C-alpha cells in the first residue's frame, strides 16, 4: 500500500504552498491585499499540514506536525526590501511571477488531495475521506484567489 507515500507528498506540497504564500505576503507587503491574504491563505495550508501529520500516523509515516512559518531574519529582510521598492514598477512584475508560482503550487496540492481521496475510498477510510472533503475545497479557493489576482493585475502590469 502506497497511501503513506501519497500523504507524505501532500504534506510536502502543502508545506511548500504555505511557504510560497508567506513569501509572497512578505515580499509584497505594499500590496496590502496580497500581504494580508497571503498570510491568511498560508494558515489554511498550515492547518492542513497539521491534520496530515495526524492522518499519517495511521499509515506508518512520520510527518512533522509543525508547518513552515516563514519567520526569521530572512523574512524580515524581505519585508524591508518590499518597503524600499514600493515605488519601483519592476516590483509589480515580480508580483505576477510570485502569484503564478502560488497558483501552480496550489494546482499540485489540489491533485494530491484528489489522489488521497481516491485512495481513502479504496481502503474505506472514512476519516481520511472526510479530511480530504474538508481541505480540498480550501485548496481550490487558494487556486481561485491566485488566479483572480493574476487576472486583476496582469493588464496593468504588462501594458504599463
Amino acid at each position, binding site marked *: 500500500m502506497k497511501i503513506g507515500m501519497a500523504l507524505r507528498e501532500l504534506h510536502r506540497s502543502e508545506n511548500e504552498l504555505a511557504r510560497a504564500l508567506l513569501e509572497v505576503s512578505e515580499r509584497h507587503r*505594499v*500590496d496590502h491585499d496580497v500581504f494580508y*491574504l497571503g498570510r*491568511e491563505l498560508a494558515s489554511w495550508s498550515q492547518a492542513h499540514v497539521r491534520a496530515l501529520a495526524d492522518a499519517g500516523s495511521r499509515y506508518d509515516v512520520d510527518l512533522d506536525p509543525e508547518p513552515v512559518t516563514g519567520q526569521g531574519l530572512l523574512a524580515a529582510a524581505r519585508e524591508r526590501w518590499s518597503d524600499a521598492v514600493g515605488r519601483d514598477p519592476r516590483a509589480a512584475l515580480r508580483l505576477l511571477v510570485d502569484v503564478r508560482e502560488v497558483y501552480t503550487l496550489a494546482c499540485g496540492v489540489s491533485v494530491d488531495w484528489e489522489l488521497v481521496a481516491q485512495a481513502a475510498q479504496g481502503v474505506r477510510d472514512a476519516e481520511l475521506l472526510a479530511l480530504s472533503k474538508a481541505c480540498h475545497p480550501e485548496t481550490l*479557493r487558494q487556486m481561485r484567489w491566485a488566479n483572480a489576482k493574476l487576472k486583476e493585475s496582469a*493588464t*496593468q*502590469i504588462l*501594458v*504599463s
Partner: protein
Amino acid sequence: MSRDAIAAPWGTRTPYGRGEVWPVRVDMHLADGVTEADVDRWVQSASILHSNGDALDIAVKDGRVVGVRGRGEDRVNHGRLGPKDLFGWQANRSPDRLTRPLVRRGGRLVETDWDEAMDLVVRRSQDLLAEQGPSALGFYTTGQLFLEEYYTLGVVAHAGVGTPHVDGNTRLCTATAAAALKQSFGCDGQPGSYTDVDHADVIALYGHNMAETQSVLWTRILDRLAGPNPPAVVCVDPRLTPVAREAAVHLAPRPGTNVALMNGLLAEVIAHDWVDHDYVERHVVGFDELKEQLATWSADRAADVCDVPVEDLREAARLVGTADRLLSTVLQGFYQSNQATAAAVQVNNIHLVRGRLGTPGNGILQMNGQPTAQNTREAGADGDLAAFRNWTNESHVADLARVWNVDPMTIPHYTPPTHVMQQLRYAEEGSIRFLWVQATNPLVSLPELHRVRSVLSQERLFLVVQDIFLTETAQIADVVLPAATWGEKEGTFTNVDRTVHYSGKAVEPPGEARPDLDIFLDYARRMGFQDKDGGPLVHWHDPESAFEAWKECTRGRPCDYTGLTYDRLQGGSGVQWPCNDRSPDGTERLYVDGAFWSAPDYCESYGRDLVTGAPVSQTEYKALNPHGKAVVKYARYVPPHELPSEEYPLQLTTGRTLYHFHTRTKTARAPQLQAAAPEVWVEMSAHDADAYGVAEGDLLEVASPRAAVQARLRVSGIRRGVVFLPFHYGYWDTPSGHEPDGGARAANELTVTEWDPCSKQPIFKTAVARVRLLERGDGTPSAAPSTTASRSVRTGPPATAGGPAAAVEEDVRARVAGGAR
C-alpha cells in the same frame, strides 16, 4: 412653533401606530430677518448632506438662497428636515468658494481661465494615452454629484478614455452595501422601503447610528416608539448611541467580531427553527450548507468571541427570529469593519431564512452614506458597469456597447474595476500618472494619511481636483476646477430606498464655477470622443438630455428609469425605481414573492468568495443558482489583523457626528453646525478614563503603529477598551492647510491600509491604539456634542445648544388624506 434644531435635532414627536401613515411636520429655516412672505420663489430639491433624501424646497430672495423648507407631500420625510439640511445651505455662499480655475506654476496654484485649465487636462490625457494607453489614467469621484453627471463620467471614462480605473468615494461608505446585495440577490438594489418603519414590530440596526447619519429616518422611528404598539429596537454598536439608548437590546461587541455575532444570531434562529422552510425550499439556495456550517456556532460561543452578555444575544435572536415584521438596517459599523461583506450578508441571510422579504415591514436597508451614492453605483461611476450590467457576462457588455454605439472591446471588461485603494497603489508604483478627483477629499478621508499624502503629492502624478472649495486635496493639485453645487445646477438623485428626486437650479454659481456635468461635457468635446460611426460619443448637452440618455441605458435593467421624466418628477415629489410601463407609479418593495434578479443571464454579479474576494465564475454560478433564487452564504469568522497588544492595548474606531458631513467642507462653513461640534475629540469609557487617570477635557495623544493625533477627552458610554475619534477633522481650517504641523488631528492618520476582500471597502474600525496624557484640562470640557453618541456619562459638560441662530419653525399638521406614503 419654534425649536432649537441643534439642541433638539429630531424635533417634536408626532406619534403614530403600526400601519398608520406617518404624520406630516414641515420644518423650515430662513436666514435671519427673512420671513416666508419675503421669499421670491421656492425651488424643488432634496438634501445633499446625507443619504436619506429629505425632500425640500430652496428659498430664493434677490438671487440668493435664503433658506429651506421640507416638502410635506414627499414620501421620504413628510416635511421634516435634519440639522444639516436646515443649516448646510449657507456653505454655498461662503466667501471662500472657488470661483476661477487654478493651475500650478512655479510650485504655486495661480488663477487662470477655463480654456487654459481644460487644455492642460486634455493635453496631459492625450499625451498619456499616446505614450502608455488608458491604464495611465484614473478617475476618483464621489457620492455627491447628480445622476446625469455620474452617467456622463462613466461613459467618458469607460468608453471614451477606456480605463478600468474608475471609482467613487462610495467605496468608503456604501461599497459593502452593494457587495452584500450582489452576494445575496445577484444584483444591487435596496429591497426595502422607508415605509417599512411604519409596519415593523422589530427594527434591528447593525452598526448603524441612524440617529446621527439619517436623522429624519430616525425621527420616523422615534414617532413609532412614541405611539401605540411601538416596535422593539435591537442595536449593535460599541458606542452608547441615541439608538442604543432607545433599544430593547443593545449589543456592544468587541470591534471586528461582527461575523461571530451574526453567526451566533443565525445559529439561534436555526436552533429554534424560526425558519420558513417552504420559502427556503422555493426561493433560496445554500441553506443546507449554511445550516451545516453554523452547527459549530452557538449563542455561547458568539457571546464569548464578541464579549457580550449571552442572555442579551439570545434575546436579540429571539426578537429577530420571532418578529412578525422585521426591518433590518446596516451601516458603517459593519461596512467599515473587519469582514465587512461577510457580516452584512448574514443580515440578508436572517431575512431569507425567515422568508418574508417583500412584504410591508419586512425590509432590508443596506444603507448608503452619501446623498447620491446610489447613483454612483447604478450609473457605473464606482467602476461597475452602467445600469447594473454584469462585467463578466459578455452579452451584457455587448448590450452596453449597443447603447453607447461603440465596439465592445472599447469597454475595459477584462478585469474588475480598479477600486480606489488599488488606484492609490498603482499611483504609488507609478503606473497611474493622471488622477482626476471630483468632490471628494482623500487627503482626509482615506486611511493612513501619511501614505496618501506621500503618494498623491508625487511629482510624476498629474492630479486634477474638481471641487467647490480649496480642500486639503485641492491644495496639492496640479489643476483645480471650480464646480457649481446643489442649488446652482439642475439634476436628479436617488436616495437609499430608491426614491428619485429632482433638484432644481435656484441661483447662479459664483464666479466662473461650472456644473460638474458641463465640465465632463467640455472634456468629452475637447478630447473628441466618438462612437463607432464617428458621431459624438457623448451626444447629450444638458441635464435633461443626459437623463433621457440614462433612461435608455436602464431600459429592461433592474434600475429602470424609463417611466420617469423631469416633468413628472417636478410635478410630484419622489418616485421609487424601477419605474417603467409595468410599474408606472414606481416600486415600493423589491423581491415580492421571491422574484429575484439573480438569474444567471440577468444578474449583475455572480458573487465573490467572502474570505478571499475571488470572483465566482459564470459556470460555477450557473451550477449553484440555475433558477435565479436568492443565495445564502456562510462566512467563517476571521479575527481582525491588528489585535491589541501590550504596546497598543486599545482598539480604535472612527466615525461621524450628527452635525458634520465628511471632511466638513460644507458643514464647517455653516455657523450653527460648526459651533455644535467645533473641533476633534476622543472618547473613552469611564472605566478606561479612571484606569488611565484622565478626565473630561484633558488633552490626550492617541497613537497607532502609524501615527499619533491629539484630542481632548470626552468620557462617553463607549465600550471598555475602545477609543473613538470622529473622522471629519482635517487641516484646511488650520494654519498648516493640508497636513499636520505639530499636533495632528485627523483620525485617518491612525487607520490602517486594509480593505474588505469582497467589497474593497477600507477598514476604519479595527486599528489598535494607545493613549497618554499630554496636558491636563483647565476645566473646559471637550468640544464633543452632548446630544449624540458623544454624550458624557459624567456630569459637567454643558448641553449642546444652537440658540436663536438655530431656531427652526415646525408646522405639525393634521394628517394629509391620501398624502405621502
